[in-house]
């Protein structure tokens, strides 16, 4: 039963995506909507990304230093470990899990409300491909903007660790900065950016899918929002494993 339902949902998702990736009726309208979505989904997420990144960057730095007590491990390892954790996992996977909550619920509830208030029916009756009109700008906008969020996250996380070095005596600033530069692998940055593109697509498309097929009222919109966030979070974790295996080995 679970397998049958999952396959049916996947089939419906595929049909939904086929409609989403149709050619827009009006490129000018599509461009305007995409810019508006970049503002709503991307730029509006920057404050949250900055706040979370600074604190998590600081916490990673403190925990690294407190756990690296062996005299055989050089002191700059704190900076190095902080950098690699941020580049490899926090700035993409963990950030996207957090954004799945913010952006995913925003998308699912917006489209779900449009469904229950018949706005989507109104679009369909006018002859507008509602999937394409509503969802494609969100996917394109979020996938396009996600690398910027990742870069902001990397920068502010490392600043968080730097602040720990600056204002505490846990590690010196010099050793922290030396650690950040030691054994740097450029590919880690690309790896994080590539993963984030997949995760952005998952968040935008899965949340839209759950919102689009809402039936009922306000309660069902809330449920669709939750389902969208949970499903996209699970898919992010699944694709995290797959992409790590593909890109790092």
């Amino acid at each position, binding site marked *: 039963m679970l397998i049958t339902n999952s396959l049916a949902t996947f089939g419906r998702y595929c049909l939904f995506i086929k409609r989403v990736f149709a050619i827009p*009726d*009006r490129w000018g*309208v599509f461009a305007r909507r995409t810019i508006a979505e970049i503002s709503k989904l991307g730029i509006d997420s920057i404050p949250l990304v900055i706040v979370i990144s600074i604190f998590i960057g600081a916490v990673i730095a403190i925990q690294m230093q407190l756990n690296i007590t062996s005299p055989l491990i050089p002191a700059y390892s704190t900076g190095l470990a902080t950098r690699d954790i941020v580049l490899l996992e926090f700035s993409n996977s963990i950030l996207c899990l957090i954004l799945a909550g913010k952006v995913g619920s925003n998308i699912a509830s917006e489209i779900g*409300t*449009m469904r229950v*208030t*018949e*706005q989507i*029916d*109104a679009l*369909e*009756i*006018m*002859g*507008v491909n509602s999937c394409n009109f509503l969802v494609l700008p969100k996917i394109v906008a979020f996938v396009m903007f996600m690398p910027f969020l990742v870069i902001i996250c990397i920068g502010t996380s490392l600043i968080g660790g730097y602040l720990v070095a600056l204002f505490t005596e846990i590690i010196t600033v010099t050793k922290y900065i030396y650690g950040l530069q030691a054994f740097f692998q450029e590919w880690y940055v690309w790896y994080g950016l590539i993963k984030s593109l997949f995760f952005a697509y998952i968040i935008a498309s899965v949340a839209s899918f759950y919102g689009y097929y809402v039936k009922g009222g306000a309660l069902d919109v809330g449920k669709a929002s939750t389902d969208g966030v949970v499903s996209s979070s699970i898919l992010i974790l699944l694709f995290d494993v797959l992409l790590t295996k593909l890109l790092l080995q």
Partner: protein
Amino acid sequence: MIEVKDLVKSFDGKTVLHDVSATFYTGKTNLIIGQSGSGKTVLMKSLVGLLQPDSGSILFDGRDLVTMPLDDVKELRKEIGMLFQGSALFDSETVLGNVMFPLVMFTDKSREEILERAHFCIKRVNLVGSEDKFPSEISGGMQKRVAIARAIALNPKYLFCDEPNSGLDPKTSIIIDELLSDITHEYGITTVINTHDMNSVLGIGENIIFINKGYREWVGDMTQIYTTANEALNDFVFATELFQQVKNYVTANGHTKQPDKQ
């Protein structure tokens, strides 16, 4: 003109519409009436293509919606305007934005021409001064009028209205009814209104189709409804003491309104 022939629609093996046939005339207010659960919303949704009927045909001036290729359905929909029960205005757009929407999406007019047409439609529904307000900032009656302005923006040949008076006070309901009736006659639109507002039935019903338990039971106009022998229709329309008195009065003194003279 829209002709419905032998329409059948079922859900999970339960038939909701049984061989329904009806004609909706151009330039007239055509009303679909019936109790809740009678199948009138299913009929309306089938007419606009939101539901695919099991069998039968729906002819828009001879073009069958049921067997039409998807591209032709898309073209036909540009000739259709629809007024939803909850107005279905786009929350993120202003009144002007809502009315401009179909013009932006489906015409190659310049921005000035689009604005001119949108302002004309807004003026036609008496909403001048509300152009920059959002749907959440205006009353339910005003929202309905914005929805009407949006529906007529592209000069539709067919106008569908699902419970246009739902949630409105009696006075506003009459304003909306009169507006729909005026627009229908003025632009020669085939207007189909799904309602159980008896004021609408007796006020603007030029062609009334009564649906009962999925069957088309009666067809007539607002003057004939007073003398119908159909028991289910009598029970439905003249259910209250007030409407029973209205019926007795009209039967004794004659009807003051004649649908053809409107």
